[in-house]
């Protein structure tokens, strides 16, 4: 039953050992800890008897629904022009929309704090606006690629027959887009439902989602049993959503893969104005929060000043242990460790899955599991599991990059697997016939072909680690605070200079993330369309 390439047959199972061990020890064990604690009847009964919980569940749900609806409304115009028209700045616009999606959630929260007037902070609408901001890219990508497949002649024919644009939208375009729309909605809902960083920064004491309530109970209220019960509930909801999504995804894949990418220039003056108007508005909406972030980092005491930047990068000598600058260095170190671990383990996993027997395909499912749990749940699980014997890592710095590795690994494997599978088999066999040892074959045949993708994956893992907040907020200590943790800490405190330093760090994090993601895009073998 083995489909391994001949040269690797004996070596392949060993490749699975390290990733499987990592997942079992650092993911399955903490999760089992959460299930064991949270599933105690008493904890669950107490949770539902607690009058403070129902409003959390309700707020989590309605803000996610509102975010999904508003994201669709905000994103469909720009999706339409990107899928249908050729215009100056199209690529830039696409890159901008995608950038908003890869920004760390803490940065988006900070940017909306900078952009919105103080009266709007701590409102549900600030949270929803931030969700719309980074989720637009989901709609643009998922719905856009389907929209490109709709044959333009369908619409042309309807128009010739006298149908109004609204009638065409209602009877032709929307029905054909429906599967893509529901897929995008499901993803946006999932992201908004599990939102953590944005809510921590914009929510204030009165606004709590399940994720932030887990943090509040575990870290502020000393209610670990409530926190684990909520985590378990969150896991169940996520599992349900994923199951539903996979079910409908199966149905969706029957659509034809034909692409009629016929982007054309807007012909009439009205259409020209609409295309450029929507484009300019969207670009402005993406850039405004980031500009506000930069400006706030330069404003201290109501005037333009570089003292925030100086306070971060040229701090005076003090007796205080940690500093914003230390967070920058810690984040870079953690990102580097994560990047190395996730790439090596990801490569081993991808090779084991691609070359191994069917049984190793189980690893494929196992490695995807961390995607199904929220980072907050992972952080809480690791906190309660590794704070005591037999494996006490509470004071060890490695625990945070380990969590980051688990979170990055599924994405890294997804990036590497197609590339590993595409390596031609004949070249390997030729090398093996000539007497090369398996590792020689891999180094001389496979590695050169997957190296680019591996570097892209490394840059991606780097970016994931830089922006990770959910698990880090549980696992970091004062001396190992990462950029997102330090940003949240600074922005929760009043004082002009303190706030400015928070915005400085958020700006720095934007620069790091955008650089890493640009490296990913530059290294990817296939160019991006939509």
């Amino acid at each position, binding site marked *: 039953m083995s489909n391994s390439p001949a040269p690797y047959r004996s070596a392949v199972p060993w490749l699975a050992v390290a990733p499987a061990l990592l997942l079992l020890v650092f993911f399955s064990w903490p999760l089992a800890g959460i299930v064991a604690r949270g599933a105690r009847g008493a904890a669950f009964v107490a949770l539902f008897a607690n009058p403070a919980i129902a409003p959390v569940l309700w707020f989590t749900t309605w803000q996610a629904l509102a975010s999904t609806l508003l994201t669709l409304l905000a994103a469909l115009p720009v999706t339409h022009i990107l899928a249908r028209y050729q215009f100056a700045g199209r690529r830039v616009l696409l890159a901008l929309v995608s950038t908003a999606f890869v920004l760390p959630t803490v940065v988006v929260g900070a940017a909306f704090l900078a952009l919105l007037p103080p009266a709007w902070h701590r409102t549900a609408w600030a949270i929803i606006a931030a969700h719309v901001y980074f989720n637009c890219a989901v709609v643009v990508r998922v719905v856009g690629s389907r929209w490109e497949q709709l044959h333009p002649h369908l619409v042309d024919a309807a128009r010739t027959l006298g149908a109004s644009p609204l009638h065409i939208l209602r009877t032709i375009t929307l029905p054909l887009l429906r599967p893509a729309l529901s897929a995008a909605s499901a993803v946006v809902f999932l992201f908004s439902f599990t939102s953590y960083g944005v809510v921590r920064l914009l929510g204030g004491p009165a606004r709590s989602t399940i994720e932030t309530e887990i943090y509040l109970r575990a870290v502020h209220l*000393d209610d670990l049993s409530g926190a684990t019960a909520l985590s378990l509930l969150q896991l169940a909801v996520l599992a349900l959503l994923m199951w539903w999504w996979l079910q409908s995804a199966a149905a969706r894949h029957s659509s034809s893969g034909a692409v009629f990418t016929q982007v054309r220039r807007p012909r009439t003056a009205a259409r020209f104005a609409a295309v450029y108007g929507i484009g300019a508005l969207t670009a402005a909406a993406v850039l405004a929060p980031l500009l506000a972030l930069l400006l706030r980092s330069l404003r201290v005491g109501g005037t333009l000043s570089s003292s925030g930047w100086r306070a971060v990068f040229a701090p005076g000598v003090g007796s205080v*242990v940690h500093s914003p600058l230390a967070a920058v260095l810690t984040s870079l170190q953690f990102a580097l460790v994560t990047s190395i671990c996730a790439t090596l383990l990801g490569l081993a996993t991808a090779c084991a899955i691609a070359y191994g027997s069917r049984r190793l395909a189980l690893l494929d499912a196992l490695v995807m599991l961390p995607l199904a749990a929220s980072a907050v749940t992972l952080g809480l699980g690791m906190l309660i599991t590794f704070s005591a014997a037999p494996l006490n890592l509470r004071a060890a710095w490695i625990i945070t990059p380990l969590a980051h590795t688990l979170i990055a690994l599924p994405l890294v494997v997804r990036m590497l697997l197609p590339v590993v599978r595409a390596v031609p088999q004949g070249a390997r066999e030729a090398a093996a016939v000539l007497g090369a040892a398996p590792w020689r074959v891999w180094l001389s045949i496979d590695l050169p072909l997957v190296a680019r993708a591996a570097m892209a994956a490394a840059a991606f893992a780097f970016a994931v680690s830089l922006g990770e907040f959910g698990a880090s907020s549980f696992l970091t200590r004062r001396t190992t605070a990462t950029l997102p943790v330090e940003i949240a*800490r600074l922005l929760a405190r009043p004082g002009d200079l303190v706030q400015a330093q928070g915005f400085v760090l958020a700006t720095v994090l934007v620069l790091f993330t955008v650089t890493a993601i640009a490296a990913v895009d530059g290294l990817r073998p296939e160019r991006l369309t939509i």
Partner: protein
Amino acid sequence: MPNKYGGAFMQCLLRCAAGATLALSAGCASSAASSGAVALASPVPAATFTSAAPVTLTLLAYDSFTPSAGMFDAFTKETGIEVQLALGGDAGELVTKAALTAGTPEGDVLWGVDNTLLSRALQAGMFAPYASPNLAHMDAAVTALVPGHAATPVDTGDVCINYDIAWFKARNLAPPLTLQDLASAAYKDLLVTPSPLTSSPGLAFLLATVAQFGEDSWQAYWKQLRGNGVLVVDGWTEAYYTEFSGSSGKGSRPLVVSYGSSPPAEVIYADPPISEAPTAVVLRTCFRQVEFAGVLRGTAHEREAQLLVDYLTSVAFQEDLPLTMFVYPVHQAAALPEAFTKYAQRPAAPLQLDPARIATQRSTWLDEWTTLVLR
């Protein structure tokens, strides 16, 4: 691999492997200058210390821990022990983080557990008990709160409603006199309080209302407060310096939950100098707060940490507290500065609650409060 993390990781593995070695190393890694420590009443003879490496202690505290600059120099000179501050968060966050890391602490000594959070700290076992000789110079009512000496009292204060005198004068409105007044229409949309979920003065204020109205009636009072437009923010600094109209932040609300010693702070820090406090305290709303410091269990420098606790409760350090942190010393020989005696008001009979009730009911009250006020 960065060195400091590498070291920490190894240390942790070592701890997992053998707790015994840790105890051994804690005994050895003491400071050469510990002989000077005898002056601070050390029950352990200094001669037992052998190592020559100077020790640096990490003192954990909340964000608003602000002793005078150079306040630890005298301690370092006397004992050879350096002190590093690690500040972060509000008192609630400080205590929970320390409770979660009980046994593998992030520092050696912690400053800032108050009587509203003490039970949480004791349950978590985050402190290594230590009876400082300075306990002999403290009021019995204060030391009685920690019979097992898990933590050492360091200061007391009162959490009270503060008001902006000028604001009320300009509107010809009498400031409130009682907690009940705050719920009346005359004071609609005027009060800001830090959240009891995340702030210790916020929690003290909630407990004040429980003490005033009773365990069955405070809920109705908070319903009225909510109807009367009380604003809840995350922390004390945000409430006092951003939302309160009487502070330098010039916010919009003239009533705030703050400290009994906030008015002298306004005078002392006024620029240009002023002779009258711009704010005052509603004495009948005050709740007594006692703060504690303690040696964190699991520190590698337990003996040195005990010396630091002695220093924190010494007359020299205690006399610095009123003007820098606006709390009252617990050492009975510590003198109060003049500005403090002149502008600070102390309630004769502050509101108080049985610590045992706080310990058992706190989380229930917080959940009830959250539902009533925030959701």
